[in-house]
């Protein structure tokens, strides 16, 4: 295999004066949606052609920042929904400052409600979720146990071969004239046994006794605290795109997602050529190719589900035939204190 150098596609612009202002672009987080380009008041940002980019191993960054034009105002960082642009003043991110508008976007898991099913972890498009779960001890959940009557047992090994949990072990040995048996004992591992009773049913000499805890003692020896799966949930806030997949797929409504933009997404089926570029460009997994029910069947060219869409416009930007129209009607953000900033933010609405 040929080794290629990892090309650093990140960009940094900084200026030292009364303050140290620093803009850092992280290419890995960028979806090339073009919001930064739209908001920049000095047209210092240019998004490179994304259609080609998602399809080929492009060596350039998703965006170019003209450092001679960039005024280091921080607007691009405030509008970027993917945390790809970070702006620091004297080492502190402006996202921590009330002076600057901040997109209201978040994804949170309520651990009280979470059942640690991992559906969100598997569905999350940027793989930002980690669910670390601690399963209950299996033996504590088994409702009974088995006992083998050694006097009746003939060491046939049928139970050992049949046990689906590999919980039964026969200690085979060579018979001697002093001890003319083929086994020194048979052992049931109570941690592995699931009380399925396959052994009891298969035993040809009825040497296996089953003791059902539920029947003999009632429910009381089964402590419900032993049943639960415990765990920790973690959302990587840097890579999370607040698309809402986790919220939608969670079977117990444990996740709340706030999205930065509101709007609509329209795809013209007539214009669309089904090239897949938009599917590759979308960081939120909103788009997919539908499969016909029977081969040769007719289906829509692209399927969209807007409940996962944050209206960033990456698909529209990437579409080579302009078949996609993303309309943003509202930015959910903290108050904007400056008229120029308000105007720039209004620029991304249509």
């Amino acid at each position, binding site marked *: 295999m040929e080794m290629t150098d990892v090309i650093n596609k990140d960009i940094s612009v900084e*200026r030292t*004066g*009364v*303050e140290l*202002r620093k803009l850092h672009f992280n290419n890995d987080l960028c979806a090339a949606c073009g919001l930064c380009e739209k908001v920049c*008041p*000095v047209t210092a940002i240019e998004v490179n052609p994304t259609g080609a980019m998602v399809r080929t191993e492009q060596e350039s960054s998703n965006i170019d920042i003209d450092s001679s*034009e960039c*005024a*280091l*105002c921080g*607007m691009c960082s405030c509008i970027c929904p993917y945390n790809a642009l970070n702006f620091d003043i004297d080492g502190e991110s402006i996202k921590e400052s009330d*002076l*600057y508008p901040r997109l209201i976007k978040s994804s949170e898991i309520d651990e009280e409600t979470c059942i640690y099913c991992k559906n969100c972890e598997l569905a999350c498009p940027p793989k930002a979720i980690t669910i670390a779960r601690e399963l209950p001890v299996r033996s504590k959940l088994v409702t009974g146990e088995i006992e083998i009557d050694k006097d009746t047992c003939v060491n046939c090994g049928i139970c050992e071969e049949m046990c689906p949990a590999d919980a039964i072990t026969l200690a085979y040995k060579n018979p001697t004239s002093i001890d003319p048996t083929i086994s020194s004992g048979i052992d049931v591992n109570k941690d592995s046994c699931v009380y399925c009773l396959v052994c009891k049913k298969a035993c040809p000499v009825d040497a296996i006794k089953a003791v059902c805890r539920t029947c003999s003692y009632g429910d009381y020896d089964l402590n419900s605290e032993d049943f639960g799966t415990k765990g920790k949930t973690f959302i990587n806030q840097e890579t999370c795109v607040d698309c809402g997949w986790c919220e939608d797929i969670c079977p117990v409504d444990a996740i709340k997602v706030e999205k930065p933009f509101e709007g609509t997404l329209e795809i013209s089926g007539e214009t669309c050529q089904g090239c897949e570029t938009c599917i590759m460009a979308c960081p939120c997994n909103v788009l997919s190719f539908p499969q016909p029910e029977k081969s040769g069947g007719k289906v829509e060219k692209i399927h969209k589900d807007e409940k996962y869409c944050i209206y960033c416009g990456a698909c529209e930007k990437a579409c080579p035939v302009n078949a996609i129209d993303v309309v943003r009607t509202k930015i959910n953000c903290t108050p904007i*204190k*400056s*008229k*120029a*900033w308000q*105007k*720039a933010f209004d620029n991304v609405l249509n």
Partner: protein
Amino acid sequence: MPKHIISGLKYLAAVELRKNGYNQNQIAEILDMNRSTVSHYLNGRNISVNSVEVAEVIRDFCRKDFLTMVYTLLKDVNQTRTIVKICSNTSYKSNIGNSCIACGICSDACMMNAVVLDDLKAKINDEFCCGCLICGEMCPTNSITITEVK
């Protein structure tokens, strides 16, 4: 030669301060000179007429040229600020338009430390403004207007 022009500028500043009622000790402190030199200057000694003439020509340059020339001679922002302020008798009034994006280029550029950012907008303290217009030239959104007050 630059040293002589600096002397000329300090002479002009010393005279200006004296007119405004500062005593020799105070003048020496403000201009970072020793008191006897101030005394000589104010009595017209140890200073060449030509140095004063050149200094006067520089003082009457347009404000940007005056500021940059003084800085080039002194190589010290604080001293430049002192001399320029003392030798300017014009006041200026500033206006920041709503197109200001609070990039801070103006406050970085202002040698007089007259510009600060306040609530995502530049704010110019007219008291310190020397009228050089460098901030307006550098402003990427042309948001700064400075006018001379007669």
